[in-house]
């Protein structure tokens, strides 16, 4: 018995000594980063945000020379994770993945202010599309608009949730086209797209990549791309702009740190992120997951987030008055 206890105690001591040594060695190398960096994902495991973080982590590790630990802190539309980041020391050792919610939760009674954070950069983009069931009578965006004008409020669409990127996008569509539509919010993109594929609703607005599954299976048909130019993978599908509705929107994923982080740290992280996002391995993973690798640096991202907030604000107010 004594032997067992002694070996247990020895084992415990070894484990603890080992972890202690490891962090001590890193500290000796000096400059940032000198210890493990935490990258928080404000959503549950699974899904494109989590995937982006886990694919970026090894590439950032290689560039920065420090371990990156990916943690999920899900809850309340990402605001739990964002608020956690806000309270961390601004020393560059706590990072979080962000989505467009960072810019728009403030319009939905959440205590999330983009000014509390400094963006590091953008990692990916997921442009949207409007898709209809494959046997839908709508052959063009104009058919949809005409039907909605003839029967105001009878045309239904599925969205991945109230106040989500794609729900807000449709508010913009309603405004631009001057029509009334009925929102059926689902719990996430997969069920929302599947509902359109099953014909429960008249159309779906979601990421091109999220709809691709059902389009490939012959259940959905793209009606319009919400992009500037035609999608290279779907050259036959016209953009909404071509069809008279100047609407573009994309979901995106980026990385940020708490406000107050020193500028040299931000720049170092920003260039590391740039290297990671342009890495062929990352591009391959993103393309396989139907996401578009997309790079913006820290300064460009800050301007972009401001633009997003100005753009979404009125849309969300419109949805709340609905």
């Amino acid at each position: 018995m004594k032997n067992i206890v002694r070996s247990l105690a020895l084992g415990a001591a070894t484990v603890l000594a080992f972890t202690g040594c490891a962090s001590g060695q890193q500290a000796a190398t000096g400059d940032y980063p000198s210890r493990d960096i935490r990258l928080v994902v404000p959503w549950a495991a699974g899904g494109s945000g989590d995937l982006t973080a886990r694919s970026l982590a090894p590439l950032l590790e290689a560039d920065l020379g420090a371990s990156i630990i990916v943690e999920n802190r899900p809850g309340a539309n990402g605001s739990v994770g964002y608020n956690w980041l806000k309270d961390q020391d601004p020393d560059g050792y706590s990072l979080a993945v962000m989505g467009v919610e960072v810019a728009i939760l403030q319009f939905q009674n959440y205590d999330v202010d983009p000014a509390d954070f400094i963006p590091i950069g953008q990692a990916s983009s997921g442009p949207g599309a409007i898709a209809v069931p494959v046997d839908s009578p709508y052959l063009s965006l104009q058919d949809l608009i005409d039907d909605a004008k003839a029967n105001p409020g009878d045309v239904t669409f599925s969205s991945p949730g109230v106040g989500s990127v794609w729900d807000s996008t449709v508010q913009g569509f309603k405004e631009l086209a001057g029509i009334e539509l009925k929102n059926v919010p689902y719990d996430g993109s997969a069920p929302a797209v599947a509902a359109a594929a099953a014909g429960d609703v008249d159309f779906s607005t979601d990421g091109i990549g999220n709809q691709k599954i059902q389009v490939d299976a012959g259940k959905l048909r793209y009606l319009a791309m919400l992009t500037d130019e035609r999608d290279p993978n779907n050259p036959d599908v016209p953009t909404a702009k071509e069809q008279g509705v100047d609407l573009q929107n994309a979901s995106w994923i980026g990385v940020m740190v708490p406000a107050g982080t020193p500028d040299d740290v931000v720049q170092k992280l920003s260039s590391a992120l740039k290297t990671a996002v342009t890495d062929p391995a990352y591009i391959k993973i993103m393309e396989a997951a139907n996401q578009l690798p997309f790079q913006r640096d820290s300064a460009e991202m800050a301007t972009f987030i401001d633009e997003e907030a100005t753009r979404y604000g009125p849309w969300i107010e419109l949805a709340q008055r609905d």
Partner: protein
Amino acid sequence: MEREIVTEHPLVDNQTAVFPAAPDALVTDRSYRIRELVPVATCIGLGIGVLVFAQDINSQVGVELGPAFWPSMLGYSLIVFGALLVFVNVLRGVRPADIPDRLNGWGVSRFCATAVLLVGYVLLWNVLQFWLITLVVSLALTALYGARGWKALLAFPALVSVILHVLFVLVLRVPL
């Protein structure tokens, strides 16, 4: 408060089969039936609370069955169930199987100490080393529950903290 009601009334020992003939026979002692007013009050109180807070839910969005419909429906159901409990348990009696084991003074103080220790444990997670605080708390709990001797008070807490540290901190990389 509610719990003390149990201690005040001497409890018939379940094992000594006071009601041998019919296992479904209801216990009709007044003390047990009065004790059943606690669930009644809880149900009705909770129902009213839900209804009051459901008033605060207001939405500008006009949809059929708005956000307050579902909670209000549940609030009314809770009140109805509370009222029904009066007829079922207070007026008729309690099944012997539903009478809990008696609590005792030492048990209640042990419970309070456990609660304090565990709340302190959670609050110290991100302050002290996880394995250290786990060691201390499991040692304190083991001692509180009456274990004596170095094996119980040192080896066991050490084992618990090592397993938890290895599994959660090293393998699963949980930020503790």
